[in-house]
């Protein structure tokens, strides 16, 4: 039985624990922040108006989840939540590669040629992973994190369900839809491992009882994702592609730098402004 920590004050007393805990929260926060930024770029471009309402709601919820995690970092003494979210250097962000990939060709303001199939599969993969991670966080040794996971799960349930509806509908429609979904699965697969990467402090996270090991999360992911994909008659690619660079170590793509510049553009104009 690992020791549990009830409050930020208690966690701050234990420097070794605090270091590992904060690393995990940065990963949680940055994953949600960056994928919801990509989601926000779809605003006005989704296939129909109902989807625009749905996807932007999901994005708004997810941005809220990121905000909860940044708030936790603030409580742990890492500065102001908004500053942590917006003012860090790109190499200080710990998000997984899958969350930062562009939505497709073009830019949302100019000639967007986004891939809806990829939106469905990338987001579904992320949400299935997120559910596995939240299930694990509910048992976390850091009690505020376990409580936050419980709260997020109640909202996240609808996000997960949303993408499953899309998969079921499109997989049973036209051949072209199936082809596009299969292509999107392949593309997502190249980055899938990035989600399960816990970074250099991963082992310590598991030892401190903060989160379960990658293998446990992976099995939970596979159980749900494979059943859905195969049930819909789509191709399950099997083994994950090994990771080349780790977003958890601050390694990111040039597209991420551009996205971050847009994400923090307004905040940087006047960090003292009250919204």
């Amino acid at each position, binding site marked *: 039985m690992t020791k549990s920590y009830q409050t930020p004050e208690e966690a701050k007393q234990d420097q070794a624990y605090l270091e590992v805990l904060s690393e995990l929260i940065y990963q949680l926060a940055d994953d949600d922040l960056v994928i919801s930024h990509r989601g926000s770029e779809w605003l006005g471009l989704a296939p129909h108006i109902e989807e625009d*309402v749905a996807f932007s709601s999901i994005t*708004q919820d997810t941005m*809220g989840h990121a*905000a*909860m995690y940044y708030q936790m970092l603030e409580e742990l003494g890492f500065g102001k939540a908004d500053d942590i979210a917006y003012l860090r250097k790109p190499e200080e962000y710990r998000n997984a590669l899958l969350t930062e990939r562009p939505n497709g060709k073009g830019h949302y303001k100019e000639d967007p040629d986004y891939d809806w199939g990829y939106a469905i599969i990338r987001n579904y993969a992320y949400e299935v992973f997120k559910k596995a991670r939240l299930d694990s966080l509910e048992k976390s040794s850091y009690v505020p994190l376990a409580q*936050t996971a419980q709260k997020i799960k109640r909202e996240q349930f*609808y996000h997960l*369900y*949303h993408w499953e509806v899309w998969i079921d509908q499109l997989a049973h429609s036209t051949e072209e839809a199936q082809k596009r979904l299969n292509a999107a699965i392949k593309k997502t697969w190249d980055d899938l491992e990035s989600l399960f990467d816990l970074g250099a402090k991963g082992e310590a996270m598991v030892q401190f009882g903060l989160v379960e090991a990658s293998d446990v999360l992976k099995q939970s992911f596979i159980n749900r994702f494979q059943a859905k994909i195969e049930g819909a008659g789509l191709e399950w690619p099997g083994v994950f592609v090994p990771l080349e660079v780790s977003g958890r170590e601050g390694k990111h793509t040039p597209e991420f730098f551009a996205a971050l510049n847009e994400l923090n553009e307004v905040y940087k104009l006047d960090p003292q402004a009250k*919204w």
Partner: protein
Amino acid sequence: MQEALLSREQQVWEKLQLVTDPEITSVNLIEMGMVEKVIVEGNQVEVQLIPTYIGCPALNMMEEDVIEAVSQVQGVDEVKVSFLRTPIWTSDRITAEGREKLKEFGIAPPPLAPKQEGIWEIECPYCNSPKTVMNNIFGPTACRSIFYCNSCKNPFEAIKPV
């Protein structure tokens, strides 16, 4: 002295009855099940709120509205609003009165004791018919879904069960 403190707390609760969700103006925060505790210490008041959806942009407005309303209580110099991590807000926290007032606003109250499932059944807030269909789980705000009533032919919104 203790009597005076008690009545100050009561006055705070009365003021809180005037603060509504800016996106559902017929229901106050107490009826929404968002007020967990009021702590009065001398001239200082702390109002503990339970956030509905963290991504909800109305939370900041509610915080400001609470500070403004409670500051009007005589003898109160300082008002602090804190958002709690626990207990978690669930749609079951909306009071019986709140559920009725939601209907007046054209919003169906959420099903009680929901098991989170993809689609749930709900009665039309206008004609009480159970013959309704869901158009979109997601609606104009984080907490609402969009439905259509096949009996009275009205579109309406419902509080999403969480």
